[in-house]
């Protein structure tokens, strides 16, 4: 999942408001002009002016006279009407069928949570949006066709009330539908992910595990990589399409009071040379989850039991670096090595080569607000990384590539202040494998004077010493010669305490809710001047544009190969391919400038369709990230802006329409 830089609500609001104001102003001017032209044809230019002025003049008392009771009455009617149409019930039945049978297709993956959430969120989104589109496209045109609207507009009902009532009524119904779907999905997913495993073997005891010879890197029996301190291994049975590797790990401690000694997964504790040597049975994580192991009894007959899944339903709050800079092999700043892959999203860090083993290449992640309160003053902060790996030689593909992590302080005045530099801590990773490294607050490192000379070394505090001014650099290097590690800003983050899952889940549904409200407002506004089939077609078109906004905005860019519409047309006619330059001259300049203008206006037009991707938070739930409140605020503001704009469109369209014609 790619998390891009996202502006805060306050940063976003003002430019957003200006854009919204601009669009509304342009729409009003265009509306007045079109209204005047149409009225001129019918009544002549002078009368037309009077008619337009009258419509505008009446709109103000109409907006001010909008009565909540009438709006609610219209909303209640819309709800009753939609319920009697039974579309909502049909949608709900389809959803139930999706859940009942979808289960067959959702298993068979290492990460069932991801697949479940993906399917459920997509299904909910599709069903909700189509349902509300159907009910809200039918309503007003049916009323006009059946003439039931005669009995409404001959009451003191404003056009605003007819529009708002419908938007709110269908919105309420959609919200109930969405809430029910969300609630059922939640129980469905949690029930289906709730699983445990049994140990493979005849007995559920330690005797089912096999011993590992010291120094083994790859297990001879399973072919999997063995942890350095593992002494025994085993496997669980397959449940939900995956199994876990079990390992008995050996640890040593000086203290008799070590809390680890009281853990439920302790297999044995021995006294060796005055130290405690203890063994624990751990279940290695798969697809982001693991199970609590409980060992009861001693010796080979000790019973092993695995608890329910731990690690699902996360809402991680990542603390990203403000920026990332890359240094090349010689320590010069660059963009990171491009390893020839199409995407330039990740920059790659060079691990050096045989001639220059000590590569200076690294990615430096800079934090400007690295304070303990962001991590609840924790002693250990989890650092999570998902890195790309590019190998220039194959070797043993099981063998992971080694990287190095190093912290550095960023003095406010580097010319006079000393710097803290930590030791490089090595880690191993495979491509796109989530690495969770607990970083202790106490870091071993040294103090370096501004001239580079050594001052002192010892154990220093990450917050109080390294990031005393809130600034911290984390540099990531590749420690394997001829290999590369690929990284982007969002690939490395410290994990602050997790968000409450159900709240995050709710926020995920707020995204669908926002999309739903825009669809309703759109269908209601369109249905004031179009018939049902055309309304549905229009809304579907807007939905397609909404879901592919970046692609469509890309299409309107003037600097594409082959130029804009006029240039492309000329290239087709003159059979010039896209790479050949047009002859320079006045004509070409004129063509390019015209294209530029047209492309910009077309680009502006794309803002009339909502960018549904901006309102889609399902990937946050799928990948277990907390949804930033700023995103929710922005989504709500976008929804409100669309609803206001579409209500205005619906109002003027209904106001200027002869209902009985």
């Amino acid at each position, binding site marked *: 999942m790619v998390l891009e830089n996202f502006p805060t609500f306050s940063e976003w609001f003002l430019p957003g408001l200006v854009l919204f104001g601009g669009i509304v102003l342009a729409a009003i001017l265009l509306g007045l002009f079109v209204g005047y032209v149409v009225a001129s044809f019918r009544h002549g230019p002078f009368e037309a002016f009077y008619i337009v002025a009258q419509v505008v003049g009446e709109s103000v008392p109409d907006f001010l006279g909008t009565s909540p009771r009438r709006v609610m009455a219209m909303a209640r009617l819309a709800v*009753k009407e939609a319920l009697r149409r039974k579309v909502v019930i049909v949608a709900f039945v389809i959803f139930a069928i999706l859940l009942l049978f979808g289960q067959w297709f959702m298993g068979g993956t290492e990460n069932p949570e991801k697949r479940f959430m993906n399917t459920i969120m997509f299904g909910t989104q599709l069903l909700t949006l189509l349902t509300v589109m159907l009910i809200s496209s039918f309503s007003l045109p049916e009323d006009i066709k059946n003439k*039931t609207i005669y009995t409404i507009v001959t009451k*003191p009902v404003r056009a605003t009330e007819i529009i708002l009532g419908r938007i709110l009524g269908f919105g309420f119904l959609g919200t109930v539908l969405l809430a029910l779907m969300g609630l059922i999905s939640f129980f469905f997913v949690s029930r289906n992910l709730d699983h445990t495993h049994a140990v493979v073997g005849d007995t559920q005891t330690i005797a089912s595990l096999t011993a590992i010879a010291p120094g083994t890197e790859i297990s001879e029996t399973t072919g999997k990589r063995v942890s350095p301190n593992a002494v025994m291994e085993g496997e669980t049975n397959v449940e939900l399409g995956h199994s876990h590797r079990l390992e008995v790990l050996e640890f040593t401690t000086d203290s008799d009071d070590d809390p680890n000694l009281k853990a439920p997964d302790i297999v044995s504790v021995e006294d060796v040379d005055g130290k405690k040597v203890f063994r624990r049975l751990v279940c290695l994580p798969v697809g982001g989850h693991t199970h609590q192991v409980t060992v009861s009894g001693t010796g080979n007959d000790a019973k092993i039991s695995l608890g329910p899944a731990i690690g699902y339903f996360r809402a991680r709050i990542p603390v990203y670096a403000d920026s990332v800079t890359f240094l090349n092999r010689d320590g010069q700043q660059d963009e990171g090595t491009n390893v020839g892959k199409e995407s330039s999203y990740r920059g790659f860090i060079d691990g050096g080569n045989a001639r220059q083993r000590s590569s200076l290449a690294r990615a430096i992640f800079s934090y400007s607000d690295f304070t303990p309160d962001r991590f609840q003053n924790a002693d250990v902060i989890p650092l999570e990384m998902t890195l790309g790996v590019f190998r220039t030689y194959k070797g043993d593909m099981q063998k992971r590539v080694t990287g190095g992590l190093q912290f550095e302080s960023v003095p406010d005045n580097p010319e006079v202040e000393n710097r803290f530099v930590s030791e490089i801590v090595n880690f191993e990773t495979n491509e796109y494998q989530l690495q969770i490294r607990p970083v202790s607050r106490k870091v071993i490192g040294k103090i370096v004077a501004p001239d580079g000379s050594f001052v002192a070394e010892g154990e220093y505090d990450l917050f109080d010493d390294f990031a005393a001014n809130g600034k911290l650099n984390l540099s990531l290097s590749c420690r394997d010669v001829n290999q590369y590690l690929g990284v982007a800003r969002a690939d490395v983050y410290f994990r602050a305490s997790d968000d409450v899952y159900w709240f995050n889940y709710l926020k995920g549904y707020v995204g669908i809710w926002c999309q739903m409200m825009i669809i309703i407002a759109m269908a209601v506004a369109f249905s004031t001047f179009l018939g049902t089939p055309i309304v549905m077609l229009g809304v579907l078109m807007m939905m397609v544009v909404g879901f592919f906004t970046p692609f469509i905005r890309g299409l309107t860019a003037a600097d594409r190969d082959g130029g804009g519409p006029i240039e492309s047309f000329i290239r087709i006619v003159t059979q010039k391919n896209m790479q050949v330059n047009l002859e320079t001259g006045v004509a070409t300049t004129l063509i390019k400038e015209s294209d530029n203008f047209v492309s910009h206006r077309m680009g502006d037009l794309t803002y009339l369709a909502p960018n549904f991707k901006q309102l889609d938070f399902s990937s946050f739930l799928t990948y277990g990230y907390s949804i930033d409140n700023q995103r929710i605020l922005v989504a709500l503001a976008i929804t409100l802006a669309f609803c206001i704009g579409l209500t205005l469109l619906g109002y003027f369209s209904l106001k200027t329409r*002869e209902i009985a014609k």
Partner: protein
Amino acid sequence: MATDTSSSETKTSKLEQTNPDYNPNIVIEAQNLTKIYRDFWGRQKVRALNALDLEVKKGEIFGLLGPNGSGKSTTIKLLLGLLFPTSGRAVVFGENATEVTKNERIGYLPEESYLYKFLTAEETLDFYGRLFDMPSEVRKERVQKLIQQVGLGHAKRRQLREYSKGMTRRIGLAQALINDPDLVLLDEPTSGLDPLGTREMKDMILKLRDEGKTVVMCSHLLGDVQDVCDRIAILYQGDLKELGRVDSLLQVSDETSIRAKNLPAAAQEEIREVIKKHGGDVIGVENPKSTLEELFLQIVRESEQRPGQRVSGSDS
């Protein structure tokens, strides 16, 4: 309903203050009202109403009369703001017909009762009551009163889709009266009603006038119009052909009719002689016939009193 009346009075006084030309005795004013229907390209399709000048006074029952396609419904729709005039003006209570606020004092029964079939009678009236921003208690009271008034007490919790045409018409009238309007516009009020329903509807219209309300109805059923209307306008192909009081329009000034009871044949002969003596022509002397409507109503009334028996004398 005291609240409603006081609010409409306040409204009137407000209008009088703001519009000096407003005459509270003139409820409806059509000035040179013209409606031309056009196609998509703006070409004239049909001239539905041609330069109509009309005034409807407070407290009268005004009938718009004419064959199908004469412009009756168009006039009502223009007065309600459902259509916009091509030229001229439609003024209701001193306000432009497109003004929404005038609807607070208007009740409208459309040609067909265009109501939401999925609602019950109670829900329907409650819904329309809400559209008048009525407080809950007033609304409830008014809904029950109207349901009883139009005789739908037994079917108030049934969806309108189950209603007969007559019942739909009654609930349609009830919704038109939900706001205790000062002006009631009725489009073909008796269409689809049985003779009993027609009679009740006509009684209701007369009762509305007695309550001081103004009623405008359009119909092509001449008998109905004649029975209830004080004044009528006759439209034909969009033009106003006749306008005036029903009694004066229908009066045949060169004929005289005498009605008497228990007159013996000799006396009848004597009267003929007197007429001849004064140079008059006797057109006919005969026993008058009751109307079929009256006969029908009499049978129904008697049947209600003595169910199961054949009404005596009905075959004589």
